């Protein structure tokens, strides 16, 4: 079999086969040259190459030698079309219910859950919240977030490294109860995979803790470009680290120049007021729309 295209053509091969109508085909392959004898004296030779035009080369072949017609279908469609469709359904459902959803994405250990704990406490009584939290395993996060006045559901993704729109959609009716205005989706801790899957959120929020590298946005530009809001967490640890905050800001702006940057510590409360204010404004804007 040809190593490049797997088309079943060896370097040198002679193959004879017959069509149901009795026409004899003789195929001769000589290191890249593809010749057909149609049994009536007509022989045509074409190059058997491995570039994109290769498909075209086969278009004029009547069969593949086994009597099966091969044809080309032009598509130009998105591979994640199905997820996009589900995400659109979620987005429409959320809009119809006056709910804003944000999709929190970061590395594991960047402080998403502690930030959420404090956020739910601070928004209690002001903005109705619900939380979907994704992890490969355990419901530890859901348990940490329970009892703060917001419905919480844990999705265990098992082998998967991200949440998809279908998983989120399946929880919406249950989690978005009367009075919920803000749905916070805490994605699986991972900077790569969750960025590719639209969940139907209003927008993504990227989190980055100061215990990580300043250049992380440059290393993972897909997410940091996609997120119009970036939160730098654990800033209370700055005095103990050699973390260059200004360099980090520059890196975030390098991949997303119009980013809204928030810097906070959920532990000490520093910077939390601006974060809470941002979430309030986000939900108010949705109410007006």
């Amino acid at each position: 079999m040809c190593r490049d295209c797997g088309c079943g053509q060896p370097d040198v091969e002679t193959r004879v086969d017959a069509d149901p109508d009795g026409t004899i085909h003789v195929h001769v392959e000589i290191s890249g040259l593809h010749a057909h004898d149609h049994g009536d004296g007509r022989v045509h030779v074409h190059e058997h190459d491995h570039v994109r035009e290769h498909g075209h080369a086969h278009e004029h072949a009547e069969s593949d030698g086994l009597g099966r017609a091969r044809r080309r279908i032009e598509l130009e469609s998105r591979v994640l079309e199905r997820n996009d469709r589900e995400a659109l359904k979620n987005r429409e459902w959320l809009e119809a219910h006056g709910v804003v959803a944000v999709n929190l994405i970061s590395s594991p250990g960047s402080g998403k859950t502690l930030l959420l704990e404090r956020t739910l406490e601070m928004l209690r009584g002001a903005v109705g919240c619900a939380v979907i939290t994704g992890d490969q395993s355990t419901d530890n996060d859901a348990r940490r977030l329970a009892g703060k006045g917001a419905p919480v559901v844990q999705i265990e993704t098992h082998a998967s490294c991200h949440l998809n729109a279908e998983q989120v959609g399946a929880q919406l009716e249950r989690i978005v109860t009367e009075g919920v205005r803000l749905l916070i989706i805490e994605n699986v801790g991972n900077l790569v995979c969750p960025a590719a899957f639209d969940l139907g959120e209003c927008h993504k929020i990227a989190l980055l803790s100061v215990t990580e590298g300043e250049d992380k946005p440059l290393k993972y530009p897909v997410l940091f470009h996609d997120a119009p809001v970036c939160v730098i967490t654990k800033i209370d640890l700055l005095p103990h680290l050699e973390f260059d905050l200004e360099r980090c800001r520059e890196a975030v702006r390098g991949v997303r120049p119009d980013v809204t940057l928030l810097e906070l510590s959920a532990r000490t409360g520093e910077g939390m007021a601006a974060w809470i204010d941002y979430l309030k404004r986000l939900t108010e804007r949705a109410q007006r729309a």
Partner: protein
Amino acid sequence: MHEVGIAAELVAQLGEIARREGAERIARVEIRIGALSGVDREAFAFAFPIVAEGGPAQGAVLDIEEAPLVVECRACGASTRPEYPFILCAACESGDVAIVSGEDIRIIAMEVE
């Protein structure tokens, strides 16, 4: 390794199209992976034949084309390839750009039998 999940999406979509077209077998698939799609070419090429096993795409040849990131600048109007990973206009360094290609992963065409 979300490439496995994405490859599974591709295989499912190919299967649907093959059914619709009344095709028995998928011989070849052409896809285009954008530089900013977050999908790794090698991991994808590794995952595809594994998830295709047992279905109409089993044994299909996978042709992967890489699409560079191209942005159109709202400030100077130039269409350029940014200096990855910075997503800035390569002509004037403005950040006010719109991505015109390289952001997603697409199926270009398939050959069926």
